[in-house]
């Protein structure tokens, strides 16, 4: 999203009121938000809280779907490190969050729309300060671009990719001991993530508009034809895509399942 300062200003003038979905863990952050209430710590009315048992529960797709549905911001709030009611759910969320943030960025959204914060049951003040700050930040960023017709193709493919086994497996493995250097592992996951998103963009396009030629696929997905060919080779090997016929001296492809 390219935005200039002017656009921000007009947004503020129009009185843009963002809607932020806050996923709060039951034991710390939900209770922290309760305490903000008990203590009458006021904050803007833009936050809607969804209660979950633990941030460890947060499947990345929940965040993507929330953004896809038009939330202007997503907050995930859990217990401080070491305080998790379930021992280490927050650590798992933290590990996941790096990938999640990268994914949000590659969807074309500002990564600042998504935040992970630790709020304890005794931090009502911190909760209300955070709410104020985040509302301010999202106001600066402006409304969720999907609401004004931004192309959601990549986001839909990202959701598909994060629902599929390959990407989930490598992200999940990072929760337990990996035999290679952490930084190297991250890079591997990143490259798998971008490949998976592209493949899901292709399969989506084929599902909705197939059969298609390489050129048509390139047009629909905005990916380079050479990239499309590479992915088609893999997808054919996996038995997910097959040839459908010919069109203008080119092969057309379709989903096999």
């Amino acid at each position, binding site marked *: 999203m390219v935005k200039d300062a002017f656009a921000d200003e007009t947004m503020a003038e129009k009185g843009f009121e963002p*809607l932020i*979905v806050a996923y709060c863990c*039951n034991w710390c952050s*939900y*209770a922290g*938000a*309760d*305490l*903000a*209430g*008990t203590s*009458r*710590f*006021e*904050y803007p*009315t833009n936050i*809607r*809280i*969804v*209660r*979950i*048992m*633990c941030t*460890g*529960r*947060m*499947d*990345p*797709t*929940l965040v993507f*779907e*929330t953004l896809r*549905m*038009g*939330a202007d911001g997503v907050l995930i709030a859990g217990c401080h*490190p*070491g305080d998790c*009611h*379930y*021992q*280490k*759910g927050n*650590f*798992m969320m933290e590990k*996941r969050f790096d990938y999640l943030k990268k994914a949000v960025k590659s969807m074309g959204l500002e990564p600042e729309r998504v935040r992970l914060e630790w709020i304890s049951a005794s931090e009502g003040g911190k909760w*209300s300060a955070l709410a104020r700050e985040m509302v301010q930040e999202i106001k600066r960023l402006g409304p969720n671009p999907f609401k004004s017709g931004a192309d959601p193709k990549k986001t839909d493919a990202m959701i598909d990719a994060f*629902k599929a*086994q390959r990407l*989930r*497996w490598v*992200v*999940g*493995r990072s*929760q*337990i*001991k990996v035999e290679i250097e952490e930084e190297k592992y991250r890079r591997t996951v990143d490259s798998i993530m971008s490949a998976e998103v592209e493949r899901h963009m292709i399969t989506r396009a084929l599902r909705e508009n197939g059969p298609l030629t390489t050129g048509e696929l390139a047009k629909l997905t905005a990916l380079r034809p050479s990239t499309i060919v590479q992915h088609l080779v893999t997808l054919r090997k996996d038995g997910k895509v097959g040839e459908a016929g010919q069109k203008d001296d080119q092969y057309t492809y379709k989903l096999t399942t």
Partner: protein
Amino acid sequence: MAEKTRVGVFVCSCGTNIGGVVDVSAVTEYAKSIPRVIHAEHNLYMCSEAGLTSIKESIKAHSLNRVVVASCTPRTHEPLFRKACEEAGLNQYLFEMANIREHDSWVHPHEKKKATEKAKDIVRMAVGKAVLLEPQTEPEVEVKGSALVIGGGVAGMTAALSMASQGFKVYLIEKEAELGGQTRKLFKLYPTLANASEVVEPMIEAVKTNRNIELATSTTLKDIFGYVGNFKAVTAGPDGDKEIDVGTIIVAPGSSNYTPPKGLHEYGVNERVITQRELDQKLKNGEIGLAERIVMIQCVGARKGEIKPSEFEAFPKSDTAELLRKILKARKEEGWPYCSRICCMNAIKNAILIKETSPKTDVVVMFGDLRVYKEYEDFYRRARDMEVRFIRHIEEARPEITQTLQGKLQVSAYDALSGMEVTFAADWVVLSTPLIPSKDEIMLARMLKIPIGTDGFVMEAHLKLRPVDTNVDGVFIAGTVSGPKDVSESVISGEAAAARASILMGNGKVKTEAITAVVDESQCIGCGLCEEICPYGAPKIEDGKSKIREVLCRGCGSCAAECPKRTITMHHYGDHQILAQVRALLVPSIAQED
């Protein structure tokens, strides 16, 4: 869904708490317009007898099969409303709460209009989820009337005796050859100056002669299976391995005493530098002799350094022992960050003991902070009356042994009160060292899947409200395994743990978590990721499929978030149920279709 969904919405004014800000009538009217809402009403206090009766009557009158109460936080009132639903014949998990007080009226008192709109959103979200709720049952499991107590110190023995006296069968295992733990090795106890043996010996005798207690010394826990009410423990002792079936477990393995690294304050180099524990023994054996001066240094190895939370948290299952050894070694050099609670009284006790036998000996206690709580203030005054000298040093200039002259140790420190450096020639230098977690205890905690806190001690389920419970149902803690305690505090925790375990054993059954993970076995590929990440050991791969033992599952949902095939889902917190709330908020038109 075969049965038609019929939602009832009950909006609470909470006196003026909600009603003073949110237009409760408007919210109620709005609720009636939400699809599938059959009935909506508001009440001054939904949690009052009248309110609850109204919910129950409406369930019957309107054949409601989902109930949403828009009021305060579910963290306090959910059980009450759930109970009302159950009483009207509705499964309690078909209830959902909309928090329009803590999360709305109380935080937006000056924005009445916006707060009312927000309340409508919150109600709509709750209805969105309620529609997709399913009935759940809390599995009930039998609790065997027997307990395993690990550790035969004061805390473990107290717990064993308490449970045995209530008629429960108790298996007490102790890793050493004798009962009594650390207390048995002590000379005198503060503040009574009673002999430790007078406290411990009768207790040991009572344990040995109790018919309900089966005692095994030189025995450790080798492995543990099962869950609350039905544990199978494998113990390793002189007569080989033995299997015991118990309903509850009390973990009381104690802690160990910090030994300073060689060279710290000349410890291990000069034989006249000893720890309080060693002084205790020397006093008992009369080995101190006629000393002119004894200097005590407080907080050696305590209240220093820093432990990163991840140090104890994120151990991979393999390598635990190796990693632990490294951490404990690093801590030995750096010290432990917490206050060990008992060392001040212990130093005062030994100072008084020295003064009582040898009034002419000058006893100097050097401290950064002296922490004597409760009646121990009198104990401290008594020491002062006996002319024990207390010298406060500043943190930046801790006492140092500067040189050794004619068999005397010269100790220097910066006296914060006089603002001068002071130097003492001492016959003995005594180091007060903290109680610390030991490797064996941490390994035991990991075997039982009890979390370890950032100080390295076993963590309570709740520091204030559940101080002897652990995060593992049916497993309780007593004594210094959860942090430094003196004898009386260990007895208290032993009694408390026994009482908590007895509640379970006395009832003979317990309800476990309904919000658990469930596997669709037809989709499971048996990769084992869930088994590796679960902190409770609930999933287990059998025949290439993950099986989740629901009594072990606590419902965090981490496995559901990570399952590569997305074949694990959560009862009551499924992806579709969570997203239904968001959809109801953001795209109500779609949410209301189908």
